[in-house]
Every structure is written in C-alpha cells, then in structure tokens.
C-alpha cells in the first residue's frame, strides 16, 4: 500500500520526463502515462473505501520532529482520485487540442508534471510536505500559463498568477512557522494553539487558501491566467489547483475551528456573489468561466465553514467534473473560431452540436438544475448555510447568479445567426472523448454525496426542504433575469466588468500607503539629513584646504617611499607564485607541517 | 577471508572444478563447432601447444608478456572460487561475494593490457587498448547488475541470493538485469562476438597474437575457466542455482552451468562481430542508463515481493 502512495505521486513525474524525452510520440505516451498514473489513484480510493488508512514517510531532520511523507485517508483518497481522473480526461483532450502545436511535448509534459505536484499535494502527510508540493504546484501552473509564445498576455498573466499566489503563500509560511514554534510538530490534525501564535496560524492558513482559490479580493489572477491554453485552464483553474485552497481548509478543519472558519465562510459567501457578478459582466467565454469558478469556490468555502469538510468535498468533486467539461467544450469552440470572445463565438454551438450538448449538460449541472451532480452538492451547501441567515441569502443570490451567467453564453453559442459550419480541425476525436467523459460524470456524480460523507467519517450531509425550494426559486430567478434582459445599473455593470475594483482596492490599501511612506521618507531624507550632511561637508572643505599644504610637504613623501617599498616586496613575493604546480604543492605540505607542529606544541604545553 | 569459512579442501575443490570445467568446456566448443567431442583431439592439441617454443618479445617490458597469462589464470580461478556450487560444496563463501566476484573479473583487464603491451607489436597494443575501452564500458553494468540481483536477498553473499530464489528464479523477476548481464559476461571472457583482443580477423590476432606454447595454453585454459565461472554465476544469480526438483543439488547446478556455457558458446558462434565503436557507445549510452533502471526495478521488486 505505501508503494501505491508513492506510485501515485511518482508516476506522473516519470511520465513527464518520458514525454519530454520523446517529443515525436508525445500524445500517445502522455495519454498512456496519465492512464497508468491514474490506476494507483483509483486503487487508493477503493482501498480507502474499504477502510484502509496508511501513512508512509521518513524522518527528514532526525530529532527535529519534521517528518515528510504521504498518507492515505478518506479526504486524500477522494482528492487523489478526482485529480487523477480529471487529469486523465484533460490529458486525453490535450492530445487532440495540441495536435497542431509544435511544442506539444512541452505542454503535455507540463501537464503531467503539474499532476505529479498536485497528487503530492493532496497525498502529503504533514504541513511541511504539503507546503513543498503547494509551491511546486504554483511553479508548474505558472509555467503552463506562460506556455504560449504568441499571446502577449500569457507571460504577464503567468507572472500575475504566480506573484498573487506567492504573496498569499506568505500566509502559509507564517502559519507553518507559528504552528511549529507553538507545538513543535507539523503533523495534521492538531488543535489550534492558544494565543497570538494560534491567531497567526488561523489567519495565515485562511489567507493562503484565499490566494490559491482566487477568493476576493485576490481573484484577479484567475482571470489573467486564462491566457494559458484551454486544457490548462480546465485542469488547473477549475478542477485541481484552485481546489487546493479548499483542500487546505478541509485538511486543516481542526486547526481552523472557530473564528478562522467564520472568516473563511464570510470571504467565501461574499466571493460567491462577487464572482457571479463578475462572470455576468465578462465578454469572453473563458473569463466568464473564471468568474464562475471563483464564485463556486466561494460556495465551497461556505460549505466547509458551515457544514464541514464533506459538504465542501462533494461540491468540489461535482464542480470539478462540470467545470472541466465547460472549459474543455469551450476549447473546442475556441479551436473552431480561433477566439474565446463571446461575440466571435456566436453560433459556434450550432456548428458543433455534440460539443454543445456536453457544454449544456455541464452548464446545467453547475447552474444547479436537478437532477445533476452540482445541484445536489450546492443544495447541501445551502442547507448547511441555513443556520446563518446572511450566508444563506448570499448563497441563494450566488445560485441565481450561476444560472444567469451560464445561460447567457449558452444562448450566444446557440444563436443561429452566427452559425458558420466551420471545421474544428485535427484532433477532434480525443477532444470530444474528454468532453463527453466530463458530461457523463456530471450526471453520475449526483449519487456520490453519501459515499463521500461516509469516506470522511461523517454521518450524513445536511439537507432541508426549505433550502431546496429556495434554491430552485433562485435558479428560476436567474434564468428569468437573463431571458427578460433585465437592465443592470451601469455602475454595477462597470464594477463587475473591472473585477469589482479588486486591483484598485489592492492599489489603495497596499500600493498607495507604501508609496506614501516612501515619499515621506524621501522628504525627511532631503530636508533633514541632506541639509545636515551639506553643512558637515562645507566644514570639511575648510579643514581639507588647510591640511592640503601639510600633506604635500610631509606625508606625500612618506607615502611614496612606503609605496615603493611595498612594490619591491610584491616583486619578491611574486617569485613565490611561480605557476609551478609542484612548488605550490610543496608550500602546501610545509604549511600543513607547520600547522601540525603548532597543534602538537599547543597540546604539549 | 575469515579462517572458519575456508576449509582445508577449498583449494583442491576450486582447482578441481576449474580444471574439470575447462575440459568440459573444451568438449562443448567441439560440439558447437560441429565436431564430435573427442578427448584425443582436445588433449592432443594441448600437448602439441606445450611442445612449441615460447616466443620472447624483444622489448623492455617483455616480462609483462609472460606475467599476463598468470594474472589471467589467477583472476579466473579467484572468480570461480566465489561461485556457490552446492549447499555443502562452495569455494570461498564471503559475505561480500557479490563485490569480490566482479573484483576478481576486474583483473582480467590489466592482464590483457599487459599481454598486449608486453608483446611490443603495434597491432597487439591496439588490440589491448580496444579491450580496455570495451571492459571499462562493461565493468559498470556488470557491477550494477549484481547490486540489482543482490537486493531481494538483502545480502551480498551469493549463497543467500541462491536461497532467495527457491520459489522463483531471478531471471523471471528481473529480466532486464539478465539482458544486461549476458553481453557483459560474454565480453569479460572475451568470447565471440566480443573477442576483439584475439579474433583472427581483427588486427591479425590482436593482443594474444604473439603467444606460443605454454603461454598460449595458459591463456586458453584461463579463458575456459572464466567461462565456467561466469556461467556458474549466471546459473546461481538468475537460474536459482542448485534449486530444482528430483535431482541432487550439485547435479542441478552442474546442468545449469553447462547449459549456460553451451548457450553462450553457441550464440557467440552465430552472432556477427559488431564494430568496437558501436559496442562501446552502446555500452555507455544504453547499457549504463539501463543498469540504473535495473537497480530501480530490483528495488521495486524487493519492496513488493520480498519485504
């Protein structure tokens, strides 16, 4: 069983190397590697379902209490199977998507390397290993976003994504350091230490989760990351990497119990609504989906905070299938029209009805239409939030929003006026295979709620008739808003289009004060210190002039003599550096002998 | 090396196996060449060789020329001594046998260099240099493969490695190791198709071209003892050694060893001799990385099946 753990994390990495080494057969080897790598992950899920719990690791710093290793429990088993399955689907799809791309081996290897890091993240045992894989995931993601060399937005997008998540990761580092100094261990499952250190742990972990999961006000990087290839968006920015933040919350639930989870819940609820608003205002299909992801991840935060890990996990799994499908079918449309702008895509759904059907199924699932998967998971989130009225209301608004922002692009895609009958090009079969798999999963995953709760050892998921009814009403309201083309106040629309001014907010709260501080420092420097220095300088000039003549008379002559003598000494010493190896060696031996003698005499006396 | 593990009969036993094995290998060579195994022909040619006068190369390092067959014979016999023959019948049973065996084989290389250099003829020197290049390239896979094979037993003692195979021979568990091992041992006993130092068609006989009489006979004897040693080690490491049904252990081991030797001779007879540059580049660029893979595979198998 420990072997399976290491295989799950190691096989994708091996696959990445093999794919990179043999670019000619990259699609085939990548698909095979993803499939072979998925087998141990599924086996782990089965084993965990049978009640197996394993830990395999080694002591990293002996005596330091720092263990590095992998673990199998309900949460990691569910996550690893999700990651492996979505990864397999996306790699299969990518084999088609990158059919005409000359650097496809690099892209496919990058996907596999990312999978390896992600598997390590979800299987990691202890915060030290988790942190290491957390950073690896960030690096792999930045590399994939920056993949395109033609798109001018790719490199800035990667930098923004990397820097934003890195900044939030500082919270993780602070939390880990605080936890270690308070408890002397970085194992999972500890309770939060009391006092200021405990507060640092809670806050740091929540901030890290917010950064990775693109929660407001750090959500802008996700939009920028859409410059990456579409399969990358599907894998990283919907199903796996952004879910790492939610995973961190679920994994740290005992550490975060109390106010940190409340903070996370509030952030999630507000982000759910904000993300929905952003998604509604975007004119680019992938950015719509990015906004939707932000919103749905907010719902997961609420689910974890209000209902416990199982609720969040179910929504994570259901959302992973649905959102991956949406992105993948978006990629098919993108290939046919060479763009992801909604106006360019008008009628693309009619050109490719199979892809549109899959898009529809996944959209219905994410929009929480019964009986699809995300309907049930979102219902559990809503039912869990019922105890806290404010969250409940925000969740319902977000539910209405999700119906609206998914209906809008669907209508545009199905618009007959723009149909062109354009060909998708090479590689359609594997792409459709990937999309179809996610659509089927969006239907089938509806039943996994109870087994997932069982896997995590929780008795049942919260349900309530009231939330069920109100959710359906909210979905209806969202649909109605789009169909009736309800006018939105222009200021709200503008705000939503520009990411709810998150950048400006960060600018105002972080950048401006920093600038102001440096400006103040500058003034103090010029007025106070410079003037003093000037005065000292003028005084020094006077002294210097008076010394000048003393110097020329007496000191110069002495210095010249000294210099001449040093020069002669240098010439003598130069003879030591003969360039002859054996003379150096001889000097080294004599030196060593001298040291030996000194040591001996010191020891004797 | 410890006294308790070497009985008084050990030298006699090892020499007996060495000489007997060499004679049987001589018969096998006749069989492979398509002749009827005839003792008269075998001993007759040996006798004739002994009556030839020695050649005495007229160079300053000529003494190396006569030292080489001795070192070769010593290396071959030492290698043979580390092979586990049967539960009660083994040469030197070291707990580091799997290092000692390649260590003994490693001295074949300087011996052949001495032979070529001491002959003082350009072609012989070139033949020896080619041999050096070949053996340096193959020494690493040889040592690494022994590591891979020793992993399941958790011991470097050959006897333990034989015992760990009582159920499944190592050839089935670690086929890659066997694939890397066979060319390496063919090269180490300079058998065809890797017989660059002495093939008649290459460099006019190569490193051993000047050998006559007793020297030549000793080289031939050493080569046959080497073949017995590597065949025996192959049988022990990969074919479960003396384990087998019905027959007594020693007999099983003898059958397996002779089978391997016959197979090696037979294959060498039929395979074409590749160019030295191709062999060396293959050994460095393919066999060495694969040997690392073999070690990893051996470790994996150990973790899964043997721990």
């Amino acid at each position, binding site marked *: 069983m420990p072997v399976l753990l290491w295989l799950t994390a190691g096989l994708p990495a091996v696959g990445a190397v093999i794919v990179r080494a043999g670019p000619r057969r990259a699609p085939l080897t990548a698909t095979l590697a993803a499939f072979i790598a998925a087998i141990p992950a599924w086996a782990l899920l089965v084993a965990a379902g049978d009640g197996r719990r394993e830990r395999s690791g080694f002591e990293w710093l002996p005596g330091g209490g720092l263990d590095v290793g992998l673990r199998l429990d309900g949460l990691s088993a569910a996550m690893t199977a999700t990651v492996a399955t979505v990864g397999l689907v996306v790699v299969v799809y990518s084999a088609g998507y990158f059919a005409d791309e000359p650097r496809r081996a690099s892209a496919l290897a990058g996907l596999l390397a990312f999978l390896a890091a992600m598997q390590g993240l979800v299987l990691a045992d202890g915060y030290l290993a988790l942190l290491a894989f957390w950073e690896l995931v960030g690096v792999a993601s930045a590399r994939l976003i920056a993949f395109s060399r033609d798109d001018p937005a790719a490199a800035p997008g990667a930098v923004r994504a990397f820097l934003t998540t890195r900044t939030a990761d500082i919270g993780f580092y602070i939390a880990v350091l605080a936890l270690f100094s308070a408890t002397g261990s970085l194992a999972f499952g500890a309770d939060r230490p009391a006092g200021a250190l405990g507060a640092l742990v809670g806050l740091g972990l929540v901030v890290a989760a917010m950064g990775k999961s693109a929660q407001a006000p750090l959500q802008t990087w996700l939009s920028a990351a859409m410059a990456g290839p579409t399969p990358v968006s599907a894998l990283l920015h919907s199903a796996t990497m952004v879910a790492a933040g939610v995973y961190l919350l679920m994994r740290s639930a005992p550490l975060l119990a109390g106010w940190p989870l409340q903070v996370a819940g509030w952030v999630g609820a507000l982000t759910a609504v904000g993300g929905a608003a952003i998604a509604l205002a975007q004119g680019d299909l992938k950015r719509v989906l990015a906004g939707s992801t932000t919103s749905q991840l907010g719902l997961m935060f609420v689910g974890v905070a209000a209902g416990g890990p199982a609720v969040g996990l179910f929504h994570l799994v259901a959302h992973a299938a649905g959102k991956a499908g949406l992105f993948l079918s978006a990629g098919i449309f993108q290939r046919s029209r060479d763009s992801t702008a909604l106006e360019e895509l008008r009628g693309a759904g009619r050109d490719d009805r199979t892809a549109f059907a899959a898009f529809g199924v996944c959209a219905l699932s994410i929009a929480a239409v019964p009986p699809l998967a995300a309907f049930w998971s979102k219902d559990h989130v809503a039912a869990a939030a019922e105890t806290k009225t404010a969250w409940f209301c925000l969740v319902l608004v977000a539910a209405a929003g999700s119906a609206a922002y998914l209906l809008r692009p669907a209508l545009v895609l199905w618009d007959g006026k723009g149909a062109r009958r354009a060909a998708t090009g090479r590689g359609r079969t594997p792409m459709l295979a990937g999309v179809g798999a996610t659509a089927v999963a969006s239907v089938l995953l509806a039943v996994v709620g109870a087994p997932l709760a069982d896997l995590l050892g929780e008795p049942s998921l919260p349900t309530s008739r009231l939330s069920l009814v109100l959710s359906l009403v909210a979905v209806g309201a969202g649909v109605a808003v789009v169909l009736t083309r309800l006018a939105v106040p222009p200021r709200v629309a503008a705000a939503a289009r520009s990411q709810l001014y998150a950048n400006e907010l960060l600018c105002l709260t972080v950048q401006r004060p920093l600038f102001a501080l440096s400006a103040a420092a500058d003034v103090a420097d010029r007025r106070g210190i410079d003037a003093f220095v000037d005065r000292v300088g003028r005084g020094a000039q006077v002294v210097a002039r008076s010394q000048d003549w003393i110097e020329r008379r007496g000191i110069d002559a002495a210095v010249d003599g000294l210099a001449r003598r040093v020069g002669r000494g240098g010439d003598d010493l130069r003879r030591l*550096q*003969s*360039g*002859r*190896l054996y003379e150096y*060696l001889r000097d080294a031996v004599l030196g060593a002998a001298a040291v030996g003698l000194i040591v001996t005499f010191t020891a004797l006396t | 090396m410890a006294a308790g593990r070497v009985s008084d009969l050990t030298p006699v036993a090892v020499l007996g196996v060495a000489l007997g094995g060499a004679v049987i290998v001589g018969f096998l060579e006749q069989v492979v060449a398509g002749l009827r195994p005839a003792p008269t022909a075998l001993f007759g040619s040996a006798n004739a060789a002994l009556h030839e006068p020695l050649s005495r190369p007229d160079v300053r390092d000529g003494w190396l020329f006569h030292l080489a067959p001795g070192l070769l014979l010593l290396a071959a016999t030492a290698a043979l001594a580390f092979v586990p023959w049967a539960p009660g019948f083994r040469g030197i049973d070291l707990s580091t046998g799997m290092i000692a065996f390649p260590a003994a084989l490693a001295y074949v290389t300087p011996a052949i260099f001495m032979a070529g250099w001491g002959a003082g003829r350009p072609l012989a020197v070139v033949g020896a240099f080619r041999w050096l290049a070949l053996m340096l390239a193959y020494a690493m896979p040889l040592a690494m493969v022994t590591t891979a094979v020793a992993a399941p037993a958790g011991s470097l003692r050959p006897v333990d490695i034989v015992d760990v195979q009582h159920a499944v021979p190592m050839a089935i568990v670690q086929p890659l190791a066997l694939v890397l091992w066979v060319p390496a041992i063919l090269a180490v006993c300079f058998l065809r198709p890797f017989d660059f130092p002495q093939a008649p068609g290459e460099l006019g006989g190569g490193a051993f071209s000047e050998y006559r009489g007793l020297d030549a006979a000793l080289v031939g004897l050493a080569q046959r003892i080497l073949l017995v040693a590597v065949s025996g080690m192959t049988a022990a490491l990969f074919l479960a050694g003396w384990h087998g049904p019905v027959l007594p252990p020693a007999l099983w081991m003898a059958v397996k060893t002779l089978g391997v030797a016959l197979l090696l001779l037979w294959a060498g007879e039929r395979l074409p001799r590749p160019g030295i540059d191709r062999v060396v580049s293959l050994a460095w660029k393919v066999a060495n990385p694969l040997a690392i893979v073999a070690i990893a595979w051996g470790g994996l198998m150990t973790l899964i099946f043997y721990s």
Partner: protein
Amino acid sequence: MVSLPVVLAVAGVMFGIGLYGALGQTNAIMVIMGVELMLGAAMLNVVGFLRYSWPHATSGAFFVLIVMTLMAVEAAVGFALVVSAFRNSRTAEIDDLTELKG
C-alpha cells in the same frame, strides 16, 4: 606481530612515497599518481584504527568509502584537466604549464 603503531608507520612511509611523487615528477599524471598514493596511505590509517581501536565504528568504514570516492573524483577531474591542457598546449609537463605565474 602487527599493532596499531606499525600500521600507522607503514602508512606514514607510504605517504612520504606519494609525496615524493607529487613533488618530484614533471608529468601531471605522475603527480596524480602521487596524490593517489597519499590518499591510499590515509585510508590505511583509518583501517588500522578500525582494526586496533574501535572495530565496530561503521563511520570509520564510511570514511574510507568517501576517500575511495574522492580518489575516483580526483582522478576523473585530474584527467579531464590534463586532456584540456594537453589540447591547448600539446604537453602534460607541469613545468611547461605555467599560465598561473604571477
């Protein structure tokens, strides 16, 4: 009979032989040979201590392993330097390789 001082004395003499080679030889490869002999003497020291003072110290054996590795590294880098120098100035005589002269 053999005892610790005897082993150490032998190692000392061997070290002196290596030192003579390293100092007195003109060819870079001969110098490397001298250094190898000196390292061999160092190993002999450790083995002597291992036998006569603390036989179960695995760290001593480990130290010898490291020295063997060091010998291989030293030889590999040394040969590479010799090849490189030989290619640049067609000689491996260290008397002629004096570019480092100050």
